[in-house]
């Protein structure tokens, strides 16, 4: 009788321990999932900034918007030609007297597509 009682108690203890371990494991897994979800959200929030900060290969950070947004009208042609004329005027001295100073004179009117 007492041996049966001991056996039942031992079995109950083992079963209770197993249930406790499973419960703790489940809780730990849920905590990990919640933590990972938080990290992913935080990374997702940072991603646009990282893309913006990523240096372009040919395009400088201050480059013009994509050409699809540019309306190539007569005003744009005038702006381009004005820019070319100014740039040519700035390098004209370099053509006749090549020097660093003449090459890198400040450009005052960058072309922007508005």
């Amino acid at each position, binding site marked *: 009788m007492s041996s049966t009682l001991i056996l039942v108690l031992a079995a109950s203890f083992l079963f209770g321990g197993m249930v406790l371990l499973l419960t703790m494991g489940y809780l730990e897994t849920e905590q990990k999932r919640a933590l990972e979800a938080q990290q992913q959200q935080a990374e997702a929030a940072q991603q646009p900034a990282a893309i913006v900060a990523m240096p372009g290969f040919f395009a400088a950070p201050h480059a013009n918007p994509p050409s699809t947004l540019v309306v190539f009208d007569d005003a*744009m042609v005038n702006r381009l030609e004005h820019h070319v004329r100014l740039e040519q005027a700035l*390098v*004209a001295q370099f053509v006749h007297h090549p020097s660093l100073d003449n090459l890198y004179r*400040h450009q005052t009117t960058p072309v922007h597509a508005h």
Partner: protein
Amino acid sequence: MHDQIRAAELFKGLSASRIQRLAAIGRTLTLRTGEYLFLLGDSAQYVSVVTSGQVDLCCPISFGGVVKDITVESVGPGKTVGWSALVKPFRFTLSARAAQASEVMAFARPELLQVFETDPEIERLVLGGVSELMANRLTMFQALWMRELLRTFSPDGPHETA
């Protein structure tokens, strides 16, 4: 026509008799405003000297599928257009369009080469003038390209060095 040839930068330093020889092979072309003398990529058969008006040298630029000619240089009387006719591969690298009613004096390559063959001094002077034009164009575009390169890779762009 003699005075126009004498005033042309390409024929600078030629004697009266040599100018006479060139006048014999030159032909006058009249251009209306907006009319093209040649297009980029065309076979270059004529070298021309602007005698009146103004001719724009243009380069086609494409934005969003729309292509328009942008004037990169304007030349007036005495200036040369179409020197590609004297340099291989004999293709125009820009288009030439009359900015106003203009006249040019055109010299066909075969006739010009005949003159060169019979009078090497004309050849020397003319090709010397073409070399100068080419060198100026090359230097100008080199400078423009260097500035553009700096502008692309430096956030500040070309800066004042003086």
